[in-house]
């Protein structure tokens, strides 16, 4: 067995800890990616009855992004079981209460409702910011690539760089600046 094959063997049977930066990522697109690693579907030995899933740490979950006006259109339903116990919570209200719940529910709902789902969710660790406990951070050995590029704000660029960036239009003659 060559060295590469041996390391692949270890990586397959060990529980790898992945880290994922959720800043400016769609939670529902991310859920499909995270599900794959949590259930171990990226491994050649995957089987539904084979407990081979990895751990995933998600950071900056408070900075997730939704498309368009979905923050005020997406609704989370809950019923207490009593008459009149129904409640509807908008995504932005839920995110204000707990900045990890939208992502957690997205991952939970992306998986099939079987007996394994609760155990798989135990391997998902979501943090609203990038402050992770040291004992968890020291396990990490892989970073998952973000699905969409993080946009750069105009005020974060250097002022000189903005001024000297190639200009497409110039002001017309005698234009009054304002």
């Amino acid at each position: 067995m060559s060295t590469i094959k041996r390391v692949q063997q270890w990586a397959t049977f060990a529980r790898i800890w992945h880290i994922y930066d959720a800043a400016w990522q769609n939670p529902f697109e991310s859920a499909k990616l995270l599900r794959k690693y949590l259930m171990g579907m990226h491994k050649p030995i995957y089987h539904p009855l084979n407990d081979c899933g990895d751990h995933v740490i998600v950071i900056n979950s408070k900075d997730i992004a939704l498309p368009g006006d979905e923050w005020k259109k997406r609704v989370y339903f809950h019923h207490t079981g009593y008459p009149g116990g129904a409640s509807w919570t908008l995504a932005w209200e839920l995110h204000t209460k707990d900045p990890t719940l939208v992502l957690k529910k997205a991952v939970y709902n992306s998986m099939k409702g079987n007996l394994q789902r609760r155990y798989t969710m135990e391997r998902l660790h979501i943090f609203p910011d990038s402050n992770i406990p040291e004992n968890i951070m020291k396990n990490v050995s892989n970073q998952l690539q973000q699905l969409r590029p993080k946009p750069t704000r105009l005020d974060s660029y250097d002022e000189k760089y903005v001024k000297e960036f190639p200009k497409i239009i110039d002001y017309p003659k005698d234009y009054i600046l304002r």
Partner: protein
Amino acid sequence: MSFFMQNSLRNILNTRILISENIKRNIFASTPLAVKEIRTVENGKDITISAEIIESERKPFLVENNSGHACPLCASGLDVKHTDVLILSQFIRSDGCMMPKRITGLCNKQQRRISSLVTMAQKSGLMPNIAPPNSKRNPQTRFGWKKFNKYFDETTIKSK
């Protein structure tokens, strides 16, 4: 001729001279490509408002439009997205409003597309430093759902 008539005639002549002087002052041998900046200087009780003719600071960085017929954006061949704030900020004024077509010089289609993209970028909070002076610059201090990150799909822009 009475004294009054003479006086009024002199007035008319004087104003004519003044008008012709004004015309003379406005005629240039070459076209001056300059922009004006309104400067307000407050000195105690006196407020001086003056329009200073300055050189456009974009001139050395302008991309040349060699096509002759196409608008500057069509000629550049760029596929602008709402996250390209360095390009979108060239089409807006200091308070964040879109410049009209006669100033941007874009064609109908691009003008509509760029104004949609500017709105998208502003809703995403990507150009917080170009906004009305009394607005909340930091997107995280906005009300309710507006304070959270959002992105847009450019294919939702309607184009003829």
